[in-house]
């Protein structure tokens, strides 16, 4: 119905006139509201008291006092558990990020610019695993790590997250398309060893793709729910994403049986949601230019 009308209208503004453009405008407006309202509301809700959240206009601003009270309730929950969860998230996400880069960038380089017998099998394995959802291997990895007794250790989360085929694929594409082979050959003639060719020539040129891999790895690791949920039985080891479930089950509004001394009010839960995504949100804001430019599309295309 309206599916193809908007582009016509906007493209040929002079021909299709204002009616088509109006439809396109309405579509954009509706979807903008759809994408933005929940986020705006969330930011406002964290600054309200539990009562204000229910009786006030949803888009009225909160107060700093209530925000502070919610903050104190959140970080006082179960003797400061939330701070620990955020710390765990940082440890897991950054630990996996470091290993991902150390393992993945040289691997992408080798797959693109060197010859060795297992190159093609490894490349195919990378593509296949990259294309299967990362939750598909979680239970099998649990079963595997269970036999070696790693369940509950931070490594049971960090190591599986460090295996990041998409990052290797991005590095591989970058090295095979953007690094002139002549340059590397020239460096070899000038007496660089293979390691030096990589470290002094290729790596500095690959800074953009290193940043890209780091970005995707961090966001994915920070937001990962299923893997830590399965691997870490003890609440002490939870990352914040899993900790949210504990907060949720202590919220009487969603779990009436939880009304007790350590219960969580709705605005506090809203604040917890903000805290749980804040690092990723900040990373998004700082990298918005490259995120929306379609560069990522180019990355997966060629």
């Amino acid at each position, binding site marked *: 119905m309206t599916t193809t*009308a908007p582009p016509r209208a906007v493209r040929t503004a002079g021909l299709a006139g204002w009616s088509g453009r109006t439809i396109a405008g309405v579509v954009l407006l509706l979807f903008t509201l759809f994408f933005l309202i*929940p986020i705006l509301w969330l930011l406002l809700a964290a600054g309200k008291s539990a009562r204000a959240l229910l009786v006030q206009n949803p888009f009225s601003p909160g107060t700093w006092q209530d925000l502070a009270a919610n903050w104190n309730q959140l970080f006082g929950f179960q003797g400061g558990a939330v701070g620990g969860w955020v710390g765990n998230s940082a440890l897991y996400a950054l630990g996996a990020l470091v290993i991902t880069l150390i393992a993945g960038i040289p691997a992408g380089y080798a797959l693109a610019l060197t010859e060795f017998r297992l190159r093609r099998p490894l490349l195919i394995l990378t593509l296949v695993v990259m294309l299967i959802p990362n939750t598909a291997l979680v239970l*099998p990895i649990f079963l595997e790590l269970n036999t070696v007794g790693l369940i509950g250790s931070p490594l049971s989360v960090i190591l599986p997250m460090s*295996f990041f085929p998409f990052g290797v694929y991005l590095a591989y594409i970058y090295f095979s398309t953007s690094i002139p082979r002549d340059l590397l050959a020239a460096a070899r003639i000038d007496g660089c060893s293979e390691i030096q060719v990589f470290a002094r020539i290729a790596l500095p040129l690959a800074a953009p793709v290193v940043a890209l891999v780091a970005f995707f790895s961090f966001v994915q690791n920070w937001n990962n729910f299923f893997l830590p949920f399965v691997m870490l039985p003890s609440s002490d080891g939870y990352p914040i994403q899993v900790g949210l479930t504990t907060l949720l089950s202590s919220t009487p*509004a969603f779990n009436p049986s939880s009304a007790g001394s350590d219960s969580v009010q709705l605005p506090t839960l809203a604040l917890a949601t903000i805290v749980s995504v804040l690092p990723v949100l900040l990373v998004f804001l700082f990298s918005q230019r490259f995120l929306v430019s379609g560069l990522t599309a180019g990355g997966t295309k060629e």
Partner: protein
Amino acid sequence: MATEAGVQPAPVATGARRRRNSTASAIGYVFVSLYALLALAFGVLPALYAVILAFTTGDGAFAGFDNFGKVIADFRFGPAVVHVALYLLVWLIALTVFVVVLSLVVHAIRVRWLSTAFRFVFYLPGALAGASSVLLWLFVLDPTASPVSGILHALGFSSFVQVISPANLPVIFAIIAFWTGAGGWIVIMYGALNNISNDVMEAARIDGANALQIALRIQLPMLRKWISYMAVMSLAAGTQLFVEPQLLSQASNAVVPNSYSLNQLAYQYAFQQNDFNGAAAISILLLVVALALSAVFVTRGGLFEKD
């Protein structure tokens, strides 16, 4: 590989070249070693181990397809398949239609900052993946606190339990998944639209094609590869549904069952029933679906081959 042979530096003495090749080969292994190790430990081995578990009994005896028979006959298996299938149906249709429309519209905006702003707004919810986005939507769907309580009341919902009645769940999960995931695809489609050469568009325009014809005859066919990529990836990811029903089950006092989706059922097998073989069987079923979908792309897509 042919390309690489072509770039070998000009004629060198054969002995030197052989040495160069073997060094390059050895260094290749050094560079991939850590990654290969991780791939083995967390890609290949778990899959193989799950296969073994799926075909054996708890004592390690060969079980044939018994585990698969058992989980498929489980009274929770059929409903879980239906739940996931309904969710996928709603989600994939919504995703395909709206992502294509929105990317065409945004691409048609000539004011540059405005187009950038829209893409950013669409992309932003992607920061709230996983449990955070579900939690946020619990608020939005709870008529007592919701910012859109007016809409919920107008639709006849006055309590949270009414909103999350089983009939609504596929739509709710689709909305959550669309909210977090659509922006990324819109950006990708936008990038693909940018890659259509201006000459082609210009030529079509000179030939008298209007914008609708350009969209249908040029832009959509050029996007087809990306649309099918999106559909296949989303299909594979959707079969893995876990965190949304898991949290909703928790937040609804089990009005939503904790075996709503297949992955949850596998989780129940592993952690409630201590039946790793049954859990492995479900994991393998899901893995086979995912592998089949990705294999289609690796072998037939042509999208990812450099050699």
